[in-house]
């Protein structure tokens, strides 16, 4: 792995009113690394993930994506202030994100969903974007659904289309927010297969997931969160077989029973 981390989070804090949901997160993610975040619901995993591309505004600490500070900038007086919207958007475009609820654009076909970012945001030629999109859709097994509307797809197909939409931006990292949690059990496998292939291709991936088998198999590191802090981080075999923290073994006992 290269020397400079893709993502560097330091002392990250987030409040919702009086609720302190992230309490000092420190984390680095290297290029090509697959990090899976686990932990009980309400532990702050999703909030942390959404802070990484500034869908959630954090109120203390720093998130660095490569050499860009996410969401903030230093003004002439040297003070840290909110970044311009256009620059936030540009940084965001370099990270792909996949959501629990798919969030495909329902008024567009699968192909139109996938080329929307390249054509509108990156201003690439439509024909180029279409041929690139078709390659991607073929890769996620949706070559025959190019002209279908999202409402005609199964949950697994929708999520694979959403992954293709994110990949079309040629992101340097991919964020997955519980990508299989709203799928019927028999459709989980097809989405995990796509993610497995992505990981094998060397994509940097940060995944919030309850799929412990997948985490054990694909993750380079597993990170356990609880109450807005990182409980422990380690290699999957260490976390799953010999957790050092009582909270981790307690959580794993409950989800794996």
């Amino acid at each position, binding site marked *: 792995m290269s020397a400079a981390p893709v993502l560097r989070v330091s002392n990250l804090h987030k409040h919702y009113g009086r609720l302190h949901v992230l309490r000092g997160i420190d984390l680095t993610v290297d290029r090509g690394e697959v990090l899976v975040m686990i932990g009980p619901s309400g532990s702050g995993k999703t909030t942390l993930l959404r802070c990484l591309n500034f869908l959630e505004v954090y109120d203390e600490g720093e998130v660095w994506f490569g050499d860009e500070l996410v969401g903030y900038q230093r003004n002439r007086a040297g003070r840290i202030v909110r970044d311009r919207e256009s620059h936030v*958007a540009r940084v965001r*475009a*370099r990270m792909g994100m996949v*959501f629990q609820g798919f969030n495909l654009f*329902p008024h567009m076909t699968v192909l139109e969903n996938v080329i*929307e970012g390249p054509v509108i*945001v*990156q201003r690439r030629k439509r024909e180029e974007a279409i041929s690139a999109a078709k390659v991607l859709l073929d890769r996620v097994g949706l070559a025959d659904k190019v002209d279908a509307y999202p409402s005609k797809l199964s949950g697994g197909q929708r999520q694979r289309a959403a992954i293709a939409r994110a990949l079309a931006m040629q992101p340097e990292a991919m964020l997955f927010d519980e990508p299989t949690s709203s799928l019927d059990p028999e459709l989980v496998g097809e989405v995990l297969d796509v993610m497995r292939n992505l990981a094998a291709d060397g994509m940097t991936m940060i995944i919030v997931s309850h799929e412990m088998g997948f985490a054990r198999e694909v993750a380079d590191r597993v990170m356990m969160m609880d109450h807005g802090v990182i409980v422990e981080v380690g290699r999957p075999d260490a976390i799953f077989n010999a957790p050092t923290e009582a909270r981790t073994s307690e959580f794993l006992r409950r989800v794996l029973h």
Partner: protein
Amino acid sequence: MGYSWYWQIIWDYRAVFFRGAVVTGELTVGALAIGLTLGLSLGLFRSSRIVVLRWPAAVYIEFFRSTPILVQLVWIYYALPILSGIQMGNVTSGAVGIGLHSAAYVAEIFRAGINSIDRGQTDAAKSIGMRYGQLMRRIILPQAVRRMIPPLINEFATLIKLTTLGSVLAVDELLHESENLINNTYRPLEVYTALAVAFAVIIFPVIYLSQRLERYWGVRA
């Protein structure tokens, strides 16, 4: 009840109705233009993150929704000229008054349409690097407009009916022309009945269209 109807009178004075219909049309078009443009801006302002846009829009909308339109019309025609020196003719006053009133409701339809779109759509659009303008134009509005059109058409039907309030400013729209006609012919039953039927014939297709669109888009959404 031995009332003997005399429908011939409606035909004899048909020119009066046509004249009134033209003025009703003028009021409608004027009020609609004001209501739509002002309403759309107010709706956007009210959904804005910027306080100096959001706050005045909210005050405007709530003020116009919580006062009677009849009072608003009379105020614009009689009070505004004294306070500001702006003296508009009665037709203009009517159109402006109904338009300003309607804008408050259009703004709420617009805001409700935007708010009805799932937050995940905004998240997804932002995650592929869209800025606010792009995500509004490409993602949110195309979906919101479908949900806004049926209630907007309903508002249009309401607006046509509201134009009869122009009669209190002596605007010669359909109702006022009818009243004038009754004063000359002493035939209120025929005239008012014909007036009601005329409005129904104009407005029913509008309401029907709105319902059909709602069902059509409801099925496809």
